[in-house]
């Protein structure tokens, strides 16, 4: 855990970015949940990840390690720790 936390780098948004996000949050808040849901869930094929109907891991760390080793980096599931 400590090793992972050391890698964490949080970027602070600038004021213009924050205002744009808040406008998006305000707009979303005006939409009903069902409508927000409709546009929030998308579906694209994810190589390797979508190629097995079932996977289980004894630990979450084992799952993260599996993602690091087996998934294409561009999917974004890797921690870059392996």
């Amino acid at each position, binding site marked *: *855990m400590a090793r*992972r*936390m050391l*890698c*964490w*780098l*949080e*970027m*602070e*948004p600038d004021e213009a970015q*924050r205002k744009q*996000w*808040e406008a*998006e*949050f305000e*707009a*979303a*808040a005006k939409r009903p*949940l*069902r409508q*927000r*849901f*409709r*546009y*929030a*869930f*998308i*579906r*694209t*094929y*994810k190589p390797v990840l*979508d190629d*097995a*109907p*079932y*996977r*289980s*891991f*004894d*630990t*979450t760390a*084992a*799952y*993260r390690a599996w*993602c690091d080793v087996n998934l294409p*980096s561009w*999917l*974004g*599931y*890797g*921690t*870059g*720790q392996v």
Partner: protein
Amino acid sequence: MAPAKFEYAQAEEIRDAFARHGVRYLFLGKSGAILLGFPDTTQDADLFVEKSPANGEAVEHALVELGFGLTESEVGDLRRGKDFVQLKNGPFDLDLIFAPDGIDTFAAAWTRHVDVDGFPVCHPDDIIQSKRAANRAKDRESLPRLIAFRDYWKTRR
């Protein structure tokens, strides 16, 4: 071929089936944030499930009712309590996380949880903490906006 995208009606089916079987769970991750109002996109639902033999059995019954085809071995995983189970053998994709990064216990997360139209959702602080701890590239990218959403969400509570 990719399965169909996750729909609101399926979230309702999870909520209702899990309630019928007394499953202790919380929506986590971006799917949880979306339920709270976060305007973003994701591909599947992540559920933080309390790890206990009884809850594992309740999850099994609810999933079978929802149409997931579980083998004997997979049922064993749920009952014994693997930390992470990824299901793509049902009507929609579902990640069951029994021990998410960054959250100590289910009981602690439950005390902070938020109810959204009957959907039990992790508090945004817990969603953020789990993403920070997971430290995946896609989390690092989305966290600043999610943190800004959490701050906005708190002002509206």
